[in-house]
C-alpha cells in the first residue's frame, strides 16, 4: 500500500536526526588551552595581570587615600573615605578592599606560571619574529612573579598577615588555607625580588617591541627596598632590630648605586610622566579627565571637587630662605603673607588662594568664585594641584582627556627610604660601608626642590623629625603618608585637621585664620585593616587583626 511510503519517510527523518542530535554546541569561548598555546593570548593574559596594579586616583569611593590622612580632606561628606576618619569602618563595613583584587591578581600569576611554562609556540616557529617573540616570552615569568610580589606587598601593608598562596587553588581549598605572618610574607617578597631581579631587564629599550611600562630590575629592587623598610619600621619591628634597618638601607643603596635613575629637574614632572627618568614603576592609565572633574576648584566648568589639601600639609612646607619650619624661631614666616618664601614644592602641589589656575585667579576667600558657601567648595581653603592636569578642558563642547600615570616607585622615594633607614641604622652622618650618609641622600631631594640642605649636626631624633616632614612634603598625595603614619605608629598625632579661613579685605588684601576643620578618630587597631568578616566566616583559619 502506497501510504507505507510515509512511514518510510518518517523512519528516515528520525534516522537523520541521529544520535548526535544533542551534541550541538555553539559556544566559542576560549579555553585554557586556547590561551596558553598561543603567544599573543598568553601575552594578553599577562597584560591583564598588570591591570590589577592599583592606582591612587580617587581609588577609595571617588576620593583619594590622602583624604584619610592629615594631607587632605574630602569635600564630599558621604564618600566612604570619611569612614576612615569618623572611625565607622569595621570588619563588616570594610574600606579599600583590595583583598579580592589582589588575590585575583595572585591567582592569575600562579596560573600563568603553571600554564605558560616551557611553551615553544611551534606554530609560530617559522615566522620571522619568532626569536623576538621568544625573547619577550623568556622575561614573562619574572614579570609575573614581580607582580605577585607587589600584590603581596599591597596585602601585607593593609592586613599584616595574609594567606600566602603560590599555586593555583581549587575551589575546595580556599576555605581552609592558613595565613602567613607579616614577616613570612615580607621575606617571600624579598626572596622573590632577589630571585627575579637579574632576569628582568634594566629597561626595555633593547627588548623587542620596546614595551616600557613592564616590570624592570629596578622595580624589583625598589619593591624589595620598600618591603624591608616597612619590615624595619616600628609597626612590624617592635623590638627595634637595627639589622632590619641595615638591610633596608643596603637594598635602597643598591638602586642608588646602579645609577639607572636620576631625579627629574623639575618637581612638577615627577608624577603623570611615564617617560621620566625618575620613575621606576608607574601604574599607567589611558586618557581620562575624571580626576580633573573631581579636583578642579569649584566654579570651574565641569568641576566637582574633591580632595582638598589641609593646613597640616601646607604648614609642613618649610621656608625657602631659611630651610626652617614655619613654627621655628627666626624662620621668616609671615602669617599675613603665609605663602611667600615657602618651599617651592607647595605651589606645585597645592592650589592656594589667589594663585593662577587655567588663566584665572583662584578665589578661595569667603564668597569668592571658587569658595564657600558654594556647594562642594573646599573645606580647607586649598585645592589639589599635584596629579591634576591643568590643560584638561572640561567645557562640555570641547572636552579633552589626558593620559595619567600613577607613581608606584620613583627614585626620589628610594633616596628618602635610604635616608630613613641610614638614620635609624647609623645616624644622620655615618655612611657606614654604603658610601652615602642619610643627610647626603636627603639633600639630593632638597637640592632638586631648591631648598637649603639639612643642617649638619642634627641628632638622630632631630633628623628623623625633619626627614619625616620632608617625606610628607616630597611624597604628598603619592599614597605614602597613609602608610607612613601606620608604620611609624603616629596615628593619634594626625587627627586634628586644620584649614584656612580666608577673608578678602576692602583694600584687596586677605586675612588668613587657621581653623580646625575636623577632629578625627584614630585607634590603635587602625594600624592594620580588619580582615573582612565575610572572609573569616568562610575560612575559620583566618584570625582577625587585634582590636577589630
Amino acid at each position, binding site marked *: 500500500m502506497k501510504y507505507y511510503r510515509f*512511514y518510510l519517510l*518518517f523512519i528516515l527523518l528520525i534516522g537523520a536526526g541521529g544520535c548526535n542530535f544533542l551534541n550541538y554546541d555553539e559556544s566559542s569561548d576560549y579555553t585554557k588551552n586556547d590561551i596558553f598555546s598561543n603567544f599573543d593570548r598568553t601575552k594578553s593574559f599577562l597584560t591583564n595581570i598588570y*591591570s590589577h596594579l592599583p592606582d591612587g586616583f580617587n581609588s577609595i569611593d571617588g576620593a583619594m587615600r590622602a583624604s584619610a590622612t592629615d594631607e587632605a580632606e574630602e569635600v564630599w561628606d558621604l564618600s566612604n573615605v570619611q569612614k576612615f576618619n569618623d572611625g565607622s569602618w569595621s570588619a563588616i*563595613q570594610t574600606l579599600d578592599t583590595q*583583598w579580592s583584587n589582589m588575590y585575583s591578581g595572585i591567582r592569575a600569576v600562579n596560573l600563568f606560571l603553571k600554564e605558560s611554562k616551557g611553551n615553544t609556540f611551534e606554530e609560530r616557529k617559522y615566522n620571522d619574529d619568532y626569536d623576538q617573540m621568544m625573547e619577550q616570552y623568556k622575561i614573562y615569568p619574572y614579570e609575573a612573579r614581580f607582580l605577585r610580589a607587589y600584590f603581596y606587598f599591597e596585602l601585607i601593608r593593609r592586613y599584616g598577615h595574609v594567606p600566602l598562596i603560590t599555586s593555583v587553588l581549587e575551589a575546595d581549598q580556599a576555605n581552609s588555607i592558613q595565613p602567613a605572618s607579616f614577616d613570612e610574607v615580607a621575606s617571600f617578597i624579598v626572596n622573590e625580588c632577589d630571585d627575579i631581579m637579574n632576569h628582568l631587564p634594566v629597561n626595555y629599550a633593547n627588548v623587542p617591541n620596546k614595551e616600557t611600562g613592564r616590570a624592570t630590575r629596578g622595580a624589583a629592587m625598589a619593591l624589595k627596598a620598600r618591603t624591608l623598610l616597612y619590615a624595619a619600621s616600628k609597626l612590624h619591628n617592635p623590638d627595634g632590630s637595627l639589622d632590619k634597618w641595615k638591610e633596608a638601607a643596603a637594598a635602597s643603596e643598591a638602586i642608588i648605586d646602579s645609577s639607572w635613575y636620576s631625579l627629574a629637574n623639575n618637581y612638577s614632572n615627577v608624577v603623570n610622566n611615564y617617560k621620566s627618568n625618575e620613575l621606576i614603576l608607574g601604574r*599607567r592609565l589611558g586618557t581620562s579627565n575624571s580626576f580633573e572633574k573631581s579636583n578642579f576648584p569649584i566654579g570651574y566648568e565641569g568641576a566637582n571637587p574633591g580632595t582638598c589639601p589641609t593646613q597640616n600639609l601646607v604648614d609642613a612646607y618649610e621656608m625657602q630662605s631659611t630651610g626652617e619650619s614655619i613654627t621655628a624661631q627666626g624662620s621668616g614666616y609671615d602669617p599675613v603673607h603665609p605663602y611667600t618664601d615657602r618651599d617651592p614644592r607647595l605651589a606645585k602641589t597645592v592650589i592656594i588662594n589667589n594663585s593662577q589656575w587655567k588663566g584665572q585667579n583662584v578665589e578661595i576667600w569667603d564668597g569668592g568664585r571658587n569658595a564657600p558657601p558654594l556647594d562642594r567648595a573646599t573645606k580647607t581653603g586649598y585645592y589639589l594641584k599635584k596629579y591634576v592636569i591643568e590643560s584638561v578642558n572640561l567645557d562640555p563642547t570641547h572636552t579633552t582627556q589626558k593620559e595619567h600615570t600613577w607613581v608606584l616607585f620613583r627614585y626620589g622615594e628610594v633616596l628618602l627610604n635610604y635616608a630613613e633607614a641610614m638614620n635609624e641604622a647609623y645616624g644622620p652622618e655615618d655612611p657606614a660601608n654604603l658610601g652615602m650618609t642619610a643627610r647626603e641622600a636627603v639633600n639630593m631631594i632638597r637640592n632638586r626642590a631648591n631648598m637649603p640642605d639639612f643642617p649638619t649636626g642634627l641628632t638622630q631624633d632631630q633628623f628623623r623629625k625633619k626627614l619625616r616632614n620632608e617625606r610628607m612634603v616630597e611624597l604628598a598625595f603619592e599614597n605614602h603618608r597613609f602608610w607612613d603614619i601606620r608604620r611609624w605608629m603616629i596615628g593619634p598625632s594626625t587627627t586634628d585637621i586644620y584649614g584656612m579661613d580666608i577673608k578678602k579685605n576692602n583694600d584687596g588684601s586677605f586675612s588668613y585664620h587657621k581653623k580646625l576643620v575636623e577632629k578625627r578618630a584614630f585607634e590603635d587597631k587602625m594600624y592594620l585593616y580588619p580582615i573582612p568578616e*565575610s572572609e573569616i566566616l568562610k575560612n575559620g583559619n583566618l584570625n582577625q587583626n587585634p582590636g577589630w
Partner: protein
Amino acid sequence: MTKNIHKKFKVMERKFIKISICLTMFSLMFIGMAKAQQNEITGIVRDTSGKPVQGAIILVTEHSDTQAVSDKDGKFVIDGQIGQHVEARTENKASGKMKIVKPDINITLKNGTSVIPIGFGQTRKVDEMTSSVGFVSGQKLTNKGVINPENALYGLIPGLTVLQNGGEPPTNVNMFIRGRETFNDNSILVLVDGFERPLSSLSPGEIESITVLKDAAALAQYGQHGANGVLLITTKRGKSDELQVNFSYDQSITSPTRLPEFLNSGTYASAMNEALQNDGLAPRYSQAEIDAYNSGADPYLFPNVNWFNQVLRDYGNRSNFNITFNGGVSNAHYFVLMNYVNDQGLFSPVNQNDGYSTQLKYGRFNFRSNLDVNLTDNLLFQVDVAGNVINQNKPKGGNGPSQIFNALYSIPSAAFPVKTPDGNWGGSQIYGNNPVAITSSTGYSSPNSRELFLDGKLNQDLNKFLPGLSAEAAISYNNYASYWESKTKQYSYEVINPVLDNGGNIIDTTTTTYGEDTELNYWSSFGNQRRSSDLLGKLNYSRNFGDNELQSMVLFHQNSMIFNGQNNTYHRRNFAGNIHYGIKQKYYLDVTASYSGNNLLPKGNRYGIFPAVSGAWILSKESFLANANFLDRLKLRASWGMTGNDRLPTNNPDIQAYHGGNGYWFTNQNNYQGGFVEGRLATSNLTYESSYKTNFGIDAYLFNKLALNIDLFYAKRTNILTNTDGLISNVLGVQDPLSTDGIVENKGIDVDLLWQDHVGSLQYHIGGQFSYAKNKILDMNEAYRPYPYLKRTGNSIGQSFGLQAVGFFKDQNDIANSSRQLFSEVRPGDIKYKDQNGDGVINEYDEVPLGYSTGYPEISFSANLGFDYKGIGVSALFQGTAHYNAYLNTQSVYWPLRANNTISSYYYNRRWTAANAQSATFPRLTTESNDNNFRPNSIWLADRSFVKLRMLEVSYALPVSFIQQWKMNSVKLYARGMNLFSIDNIDVLDPEFVSSGYPTLRSYNLGLHIAF
C-alpha cells in the same frame, strides 16, 4: 514569616468551614426529594451558553437501549424514573449527565469539558483524570474583546496567573503557573497543537481549548522541559459535513485606564521654588513670573501646557474581523480561519506630515487551515497551515512611543510652549524634547513580521495487528522573522528668552533656533527570527478488559529551536510513556515517565528520568454514597512525581571560559594592549532543575448545579543553579563556580467553583476562582550577611527589601537627635528610617523584608457571573490579585522635580511641608537626587493588590425562529467593556503598570456575530 502563613491558612480554614456549612444545608434540602417512580421525562438540552441543542442523543444510563433525540428547540421526551440518570451526547463529543429528580429536567452540555487534551495528542475524560489540570474552552476567549489571546486569560484558569504589561499592542503578558519555583527562568512551556509556539501568534477565534498542566502527573511526560507548568493550546478542526460559516465583527474604542495629572505651570513654579528653598538654594521664579504663569496672558513666555492633552487623543480605535469555515465531506474535514485586526493608537498630532502618519498602528492578519483527510478507513492524515502577518507603524524610531511617554512624564507644563509665535516647535536646552514634536516631526518606523506554522500528522489504526493499537507520526516546522524599516528625521526648535531692562522687567524677547529640520532618512534592519522543527512518533494502545480499561502510549519527540545569535540553539529529545488504568470506572491509576535530554547540558549529564504516579477514586460511584442524591460526582485525586527545568540562566556554565579582560598600557607611546582573564570556574555536575511535586485534589459536582475543584500542592525544586560567592573565600582569586545547590519550596491551593442553574427561562451562572502559591527559598548559597534579617534565604523569591520609614524629620533638632543616615545630606521633611540593628547609623544594613514581591502576586482570584434570558445575556468577569507590591519610582509621578522633571498633583497634595507635617505621606520637595529619600523603602513600596472588572458584556441573540428565514443559525449583537474599573491602592496609575510607558487600555466594544 511563619506567623503570616499561619494567618493565611487560618483565613482559608474559615472559608472552608463556611463552604461546608453551606453544603450541608443544601444537602438537607435535597435529600428525600428523590422518589422512585416510573415516568415520562421531558427536558431541554442546552449548551453552556444556554442555547438549545438540536440532535443530541439522549439516553437513560440505567437502561441504555432507550434513546431519544432532541428537536430543534432542544426538547426531548424519554422514559425514566426519578433517581436514574439521563445522559445527553452530541457528535462533537459534548456531553452532559444528570440524575433525574423531577419529571422535567434541563441538561446542560459541557461542551468539550468531558474530554480534554492532556498533551501529546492524548485526550482524557475529565471523570477519569488523576492529575491536576485546568481547562478552558476557546469559547470563553472569544468574548473577551481582545486581539491577543494572552489577554483573554486573566482569571480564567485557577493556578494560571496572568499579569498585564502595558498597553502597546500586542500587549504581551507575564504568565506563571502556580507562582514561582525557581529564582532562575520561570517561563512556562506553551504548546500549540503539541509544539512549542507563542500563544500571542494566534487569534482567539482559532482556539478550541486551553489546558493548563499543573502537577507532576500531568507534567512528567515533558521531562526536563515541564517543571514550570505547561499551557496546551488546541486549535479548532473541521467536524461537521455541512458547511458552517461564522462571521464576527468587533469595533472598539480604547482609552487609557489611568493617566496621572501634573501641575499647571503656576503651581509647578511655586513647587519648584519650594523645592529649591528646601534644598537651601535660591528660588528660580519670581512672584511676578508665577503670577504670569497663573494668568496665562503670555502663552509663549509663560506657557501652561497640558502635554498629555496635546499629544494624546481621547480614544484609539480597533476593528476585528473574523471569519471561519468549518465543514467537509465524509472523509475530509476542514477548518479555515481568517482574522484581521487593525488597531490605531492614542497619539493625536500624527497627520501633520506630507503623505504619512506617525500614529501607533498595529495591523495583523491571521490565517489557519486545518485539514483532516481519512486516506483510508484506518489512516488519518492531518495538515495544518497557519500563520500571521503583522505590519506596524510607530512614531519616531522603534522606541518612539516609550520616548514620547518618557517626555510626557517629565516635561513641566511651564517648560516651553508647543509652538512659538512663528509656528516653530518650542523647546529648551534644559527640559528635554518637545513631546508634540517627537510625535509628529521625527518620522516613523514600521516593524513588520511574518510567522508560519506548518504541521503534518499521520495516524494509522493498527487494529488488525492488535486490537486497540494505533501509531502516529508528526512533523512540524515553524518560522518567524521580523524586519524594520524606518524613515526618521530631526526637527529644529526655538527657545524664547526674555530681554530684561535694568529693573528686571521684560521689555522684549529673543528667540534662538537649535537643531535643524532634516529630510526623512531611511534605514532598515533585520529584527529577529525564530525557527523550530519537531519530529514526533507515537504508539497508542487502548483496550477494555471487562471492568478494566487501559490507555497507554509511548512516544519519541525531538525538537530544535533556533533563535538569533549565538548559544541560542536548543535541541531537545524526549522518550515518554503513560499508562492509564481504570477499574470499574471508580479507581484510576496513572504511571507516567519520561527520559529526556537537551544539548545545553554536558555530555553524560544530558538525560534524566522523570517519573510520576497518580490515582483517582470516584467516591460518588461507591454504594455507600448512592443515596447522597445531591452528590452527582465526587472524586479524590492524588499525585506525586518529578519534572525538570532545563532553562539555564547562563550559557555553558560547565565550561570554564577565558575572555577579554582589562588591558594595560605599554611602550613609549602608551599603547593599549588587551587582556585575557580566566572566567568563572566550571560548574561540576551541571544538571537540570528537578521539581518534586505533590498534589491532592477534590472534584465534585453537586445538586447538578455546583462544580467544585480544589487542589492542594506542595513542590520542592532542587538543583537550582546558584552562585557560590557567599561560600568560598575570595583568596581563591577567581569567580566561584555556579553550583546546583539552590532549593525552593512552593505550596498553595487552587480553588474553582461554578454554580450554574436556571430560574424558568433565566439561565445564570456564578463562579469564582482562587489561587495561592507561596514559595520559600530554602537554599541559595547566600553570601554572608552581617545581620540575620538581611538574609534572602527563607524568604520568597523576589521578596522586596527596603528601609522601614518611621516618618519625616520634623526639624534640624530631630535630625541631630536621630541616627545618622548615610545616603545623602538630610533636611527636615526627608524620610526618617528605623535603625534596625541599633548601630546608630542608617545604611544598607538596615534594610528589612517589606511586603511581598513586586514581580508576581501570591494570590490571584476571579469571579465570573452572568445570566441569559430569552436571548438577552449579561456576563461579567472580575479579576484580582493580593500579596503583591509595586515599587513607586515612576519619574515625576512619585519621584518628582529631580533632573528637571515635572511633578504630579498627586504627589504635590501629599508632600511634606512644615505646615502639614502630620498628614504628609510623601517627603518634602527637592530638586536634588536625594539618595536618602529615593531608594527602596516602605514609602515607595505600595500594596499592589487590585480587583478589576476585566469584562462586562451585554448581548442579544436574535430568536432562532426570526433569523431562520435568512438561513442563519444564530445572530448575536453585543456591547462589551474591558478593564472598566480597578479597585486598588495605587490610585494614579494602573496597579499592573506602574511605569511611564504607553498606558494600559480600557476598551468599549460593539460587535456582531453571525453563524450560517
